[in-house]
């Protein structure tokens, strides 16, 4: 079974036509990979479907806009994968 990171990286690679080997756990989706908000909707759709979750993007964006969180907390891929794992675990709880 692929890791959360591998699944997310494959989704990003296929959705945004980014070479898979350039996508690292420490990559920032926006700052390093240049993914814009529209492409991120496609990625979010694929992630939501793949993991059977609903990533709370509105809440995350609000927290960033309010200065309560940094973009790294949600959009650096290793952190994003941790959030996804938490959502999957919460779903099964």
């Amino acid at each position: 079974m692929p890791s959360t990171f591998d699944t997310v990286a494959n989704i990003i690679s296929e959705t945004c036509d980014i070479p898979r080997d350039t996508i690292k756990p420490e990559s920032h989706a926006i700052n390093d990979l240049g993914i814009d908000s529209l492409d991120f909707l496609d990625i979010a759709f694929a992630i939501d479907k793949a993991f059977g979750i609903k990533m709370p993007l509105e809440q995350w964006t609000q927290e960033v806009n309010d200065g309560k969180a940094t973009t790294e907390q949600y959009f650096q891929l290793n952190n994003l994968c941790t959030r996804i794992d938490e959502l999957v675990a919460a779903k099964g709880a």
Partner: protein
Amino acid sequence: MRLEYFQLIDRIVDLDLAQQTIRTEARVPDASTIFEGHFPGHPLMPGVLLIEAMAQTSGWLVIAVTKFSRMPFFAALKEAKLRSFVPPGQDLSLSAKLLHEGSGYAVTKADICCEGKLTCNAEITFRLVEFPNAEFRANMEKMAAVLEFPMESLAHG
């Protein structure tokens, strides 16, 4: 259909919140200045307007599913197929199904049939945002009444 007001559907004929589907109807007008250019001597409903009609149908479904808490704005279109020509005066039967309601976005699959035949279809992505202001929302509620949007269904869905 009132092309000059960008109203591409005439009425909502079915809204199923359990199945997350909607059906609407529209009649392409017999005459419009649009047909003078598209095309002279061979009037056809522009494909982009058929896509907009599918987007409006999908949009009302999203508004219903989110219980009028979010306004859907057209963000992306995939796999759009315009399968046959649509002339003035044509009756359209439109339908949409919600594929996914995400946080701040939604994805639908929509199609249009003419006389029982699939005429066009697409997958549409919307950004969902709060209504920009009270006036905007009031205008959407007025339009909902024009389209016979079943407001009572929101209380039971």
